[in-house]
């Protein structure tokens, strides 16, 4: 019945079909491991090129950069850029949905905002800008505290953009 895998004098389970299925399962598993490692290296599960999102408004006055995939309890950056041609006030303001920040720890904001205010459903961050001719980057380091999809709207310079981030365990 199964001349290769068993011997008549040995008391072994002679289920050759199951043994071959086991080998097929192992081979499929090895392929899955290689694919997962490659996908992970490319950032399909966060922290890599595939995970990074760059979005900007059509007038390019507001741009954001963030990770599409974030990890639970691991800091991730949301970079908000207000272009040089944004309103030339010395103070610029960025609004982020409060829900997005309430579900997470806002570890740090660079540069440090002059003021942080809770305004309705949003958090308002006011930054002093050194010169109106320079774009301003604000980096929000956020540690997600919940799993699953997180969405937010970021507003600044009269424009708005959406953030959609999946938090993995």
């Amino acid at each position: 019945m199964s001349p290769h895998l068993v011997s008549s004098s040995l008391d072994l389970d002679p289920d050759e079909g199951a043994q071959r299925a086991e080998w097929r399962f192992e081979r499929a598993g090895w392929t899955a491991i290689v694919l997962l490692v490659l996908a992970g290296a490319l950032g399909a599960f966060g922290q890599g090129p595939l995970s990074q999102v760059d979005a900007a408004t059509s007038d390019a006055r507001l741009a954001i950069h963030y990770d599409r995939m974030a990890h639970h309890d691991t800091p991730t950056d949301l970079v908000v850029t207000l272009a040089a041609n944004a309103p030339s006030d010395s103070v610029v303001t960025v609004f982020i949905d409060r829900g997005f920040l309430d579900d997470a720890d806002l570890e740090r904001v660079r540069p440090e905002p002059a003021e942080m205010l809770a305004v309705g459903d949003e958090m308002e961050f006011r930054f002093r800008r050194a010169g109106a001719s320079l774009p301003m980057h604000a980096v929000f380091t956020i540690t997600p505290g919940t799993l699953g999809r997180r969405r937010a709207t970021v507003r600044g310079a009269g424009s708005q953009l959406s953030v959609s981030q999946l938090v993995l365990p």
Partner: protein
Amino acid sequence: MPSIFRAAAVYVTLLLLFRIAGKRTLSEITTFDFVLLLIISEAVQQAMIANDNSMTSAFFIVLTLVGLDILLSLAKQRWPSVERLLDPRPVVIVRDGEMVKHAAKCERVDEEDVLSAARFLHGLERMDQIKHAILESGGKISVIPRGDAASG
């Protein structure tokens, strides 16, 4: 996520991963395998404890891991199909002094591995002194010498 669920997730992931890796993985601990084990334990440690360094958390993680192990052994005893699913089967890799090439290749065992086990277990010198060699579920190679080789 409570540490109990994190520990259970790590347990299931490692169980699946080492099932995929096959019998030979970490079956004989070389120096590098030992280092690899340490690295793996370091890597999963953070995932299990997260930011909870309390003794309560450690206590429940250990309880979860040991409890799952007991549960699984009971399930394997109660339902043979679970055992067949979770434990690899022993495979004959030498029959009547001849390597069963396909099985050996699939299990990543070569003639040198078999001869090494034969020397270590029975002081055998050649392949033709081996009646059967079996790669056991745990990854060890057991060797049954021919009658004349055993007596001689």
